[in-house]
């Protein structure tokens, strides 16, 4: 290789590297980290990113150089030099990538080790998922549909599922774990920024997968403490509350159904605003109709809806008293 060709190759690599770096730096592609774990995660992403940019620049430079410099002249069908290989080169381009991937592996292993540490006294919140809602159960037994978290405290989320596999992901928290029926999985987060963050299900879980969303709210620890102390105003099903509206909210009905009185606008299931009409069509008394539609959803199907869309788990997850008040609440507030 001449000095000129080395210079050209280097120039191509710099240009290719600069373009890729510009894409990486100027195009928004990472949310602002909102937990200590996400900070480490972003570090490992950037570590791999820089290596990837260098590797891509080298490959792109060699490819562009060959395309520009070694084009054939028209009509020339002669052979290039009969080079069959070079053992030293093979060793070099086996060894260097090996070192690189081991380096990434080590960084990743350190990050995962640090991110798994929950400390001595984490706040443990149970995350119960089902089609297509999240429920968050706090140590005092109260359950909510929105996740409130204190800033700067280690939180351990224990995930479980009542039906299919779901996932818990808050992009700005830098963590994602599946909720798998039959086992409990967990993640540790330490929020560092207050604010509102979307919770997203990323595992295809049925018709309503795209709409399975909730919200995480990170509060200053003092605000959190006062909320936690007074949150008794919003009791819920799992806490034994039997107020109809609370049962409606806690059981997650609103994720799938339109119900004006309950303030919900889900579009996966049928509307609950005209239950009297539906009951009349089915030839059933209103309360019986509502009750059996909750416990055995396939008994009366709304037109256009298939069997098996609505979970059949409510029979066991809602207690008798709760069911009574839920039925009453729906019957009183529908048309």
């Amino acid at each position, binding site marked *: 290789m001449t000095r000129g060709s080395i210079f050209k190759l280097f120039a191509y690599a710099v240009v290719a590297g600069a373009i890729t770096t510009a894409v990486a730096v100027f195009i928004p*592609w*990472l*949310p602002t980290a909102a937990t200590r774990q996400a900070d480490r*995660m972003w570090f*490992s*992403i950037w570590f*791999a990113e820089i290596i*990837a940019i260098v*590797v*891509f620049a080298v*490959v792109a430079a*060699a*490819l562009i150089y*060959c*395309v520009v410099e*070694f*084009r*054939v002249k028209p009509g*020339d069908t*002669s*052979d*290039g*030099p009969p*080079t*069959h*290989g*070079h053992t030293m*080169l*093979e060793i070099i381009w*086996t060894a260097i*990538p090996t070192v690189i*991937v*081991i380096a*990434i*592996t080590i960084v*990743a292993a350190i*990050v*995962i080790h640090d991110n798994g540490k929950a400390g001595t006294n984490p706040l443990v919140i149970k995350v119960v998922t089902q*089609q297509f809602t999240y429920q968050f159960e706090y140590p005092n037994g109260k359950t909510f549909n929105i996740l409130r978290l204190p800033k700067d405290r280690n939180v351990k989320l224990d995930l479980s599922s009542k*039906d*299919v*596999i779901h*996932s818990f*992901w808050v*992009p700005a928290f*830098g*963590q*994602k*774990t599946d909720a*798998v*029926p*039959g086992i409990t999985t967990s993640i540790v987060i330490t929020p560092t920024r207050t604010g509102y963050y979307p919770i*997203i299900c990323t595992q*295809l*879980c*049925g018709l309503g*997968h*795209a709409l399975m969303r909730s919200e995480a709210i990170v509060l200053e620890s003092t605000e959190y403490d006062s909320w936690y102390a007074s949150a008794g105003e919003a009791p819920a099903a799992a806490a034994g509350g039997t107020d109809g509206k609370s049962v409606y909210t806690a059981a997650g009905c609103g994720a799938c159904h339109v119900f004006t009185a309950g303030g919900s606008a889900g579009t996966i299931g049928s509307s609950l605003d005209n239950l009297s009409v539906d009951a009349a069509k089915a030839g059933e008394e209103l309360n019986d109709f509502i009750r059996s539609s909750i416990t055995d959803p396939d008994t009366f199907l709304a037109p256009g809806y*298939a069997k*098996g869309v609505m979970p059949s788990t409510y029979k066991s997850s809602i207690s008798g008293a709760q069911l009574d008040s839920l039925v009453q609440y729906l019957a009183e507030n529908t048309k």
Partner: protein
Amino acid sequence: MASKANHHPSAARQRFGSDWRAGRITAWLTTVDHKRVGLLYIWTTLGFFAVGGVLALLMRAQLATPNENFLTRGSYNQVLTIHGTTMIFLVIVPILAGFGNFLVPLMIGARDMAFPRLNALSYWLFLLGGIVLLSSFWAGHGAAQGGWTSYVPLSTLHMPGHGEDFWILGLHILSISSLVGAINFIVTIHNMRTSGMTWTRIPLFIWAILTYAWLLVIVLPTLSAGLTMMLLDRQWGTHFFDPVHGGSPILYQHVFWFFGHPEVYIMILPAMGIISEIIPVFARKPIFGYKAVAYSTVGIAFFSLLVWAHHMFSTGLPVGLDSFFMLSSMVIAVPTGVKIFNWLATLWRGNISFDTPMLWSLGFIGVFTLGGLSGIFLAAFPIDWQLTDTYFVVAHLHYVLFGGSMFAVFAGLYYWWPKMFGRLLDERLGKLHFALVLIGFNVTFLPQHFLGLLGMPRRVYTYRPGGIWEVYNVISTVGSFLMAVGMLVFVLNVVITARSGRRASNDPWLADTLEWYTTSPPPAWNFDRLPYISNARPLRDVRRRLEAERWK
């Protein structure tokens, strides 16, 4: 083996001339000729490719703007499931089998595959499997809706109707087809090489097909087992995957990915083999590091059997187990890199001409490098925790399976088209096809990386309005329709050149391997006689010998 009558054309004509099997259509329906079986595979897969492509366009149309009502949620899930399954099981795997069928006997100097009838069986099973799979759309409650991975318990306990059962049966039939074909490849390559064709003289495409076939034999039974358990769970009340009765949803994922990850390499290794054939021809040099390229093929295949759980990093496996799978997944980058560096070294100081097959191959190197690098991110499991099941994964897998496998497939089609049909495809239309698809491809899938990083999960039929998501999504949709226009140019090219394309000589590209030694298209018996093979580039030897004689 070919019958004796096949050795001589007039004898063959006498034997089959008045037979009903010699009819224009019946000859194809009853054929056991490896070249015709190969072409049946290729035409059928191109048909399925059109189906899968239209399904993809439907999805991009739905996602062009937020809260679109083009597809309903139920039909969107059906479309995404059948799109993925079609592209993997009905397009990429079988089209590579099609190339293998057409090329393996020609490249190793044999008259046919070891078991010609079995070969025909594997094609007809493939067609049947494809029809069963697609008829899933007409089942009660519509097609399967669980994605191509069809995770349980969603697809066992929570998927009414029979679409999923059609999906299972279709895949069962396709597995048998692939298994039969794979055994045929292995037996053929091991036993039917012409004299002098030793293991270090076979074309690199043959190394790739052999490795592909072994991988299929090793992992397909696992898929069949998983599908059987799923079918039993759905229809006969067993509880393999039902946690309420002691079953495990995670078991299904282990079984599926033990098949599913090697499947990725089943789809990419023969594609890499095609690239390893084309680059030396158009750089007018021997492949750099033949042994390194061949052994890296085997190395990738070996490691691909040890990495399956990197698809399951987010399911709460023990950290120690995750670390092992992270390391083994990372290690695969090394032999993959070796291939890319050897291709670049082959280009180095070559006399490179830019015919359409070469353009697709160079495009492959660029795009596949990007896909490989994004794979590194998914292999590092803390990063995977952020990225898995988002659009980043969608982008990554399209960079390796479309930008990788399908680019190589088009390179191979342009390269071997004259051998298959005796006419060359049009170069200008070919270059237009390449340019449109290359640009459309990157416009479609590059923004999807950003979407995934910003929080868009995969397999959603809608998203909330606002912000840069809308911009990325509309760009992606525009790109997908640009690719579709490119594919129409390809169709136009095929139609136009079918009648008026330039006739091909035996060896229009001045290539290195044996398939170019015979006529284009080859006769039923492939070769009249064959030279003794003394290195990996037998045809170059023949050309040099002819030139030397001319100067005598």
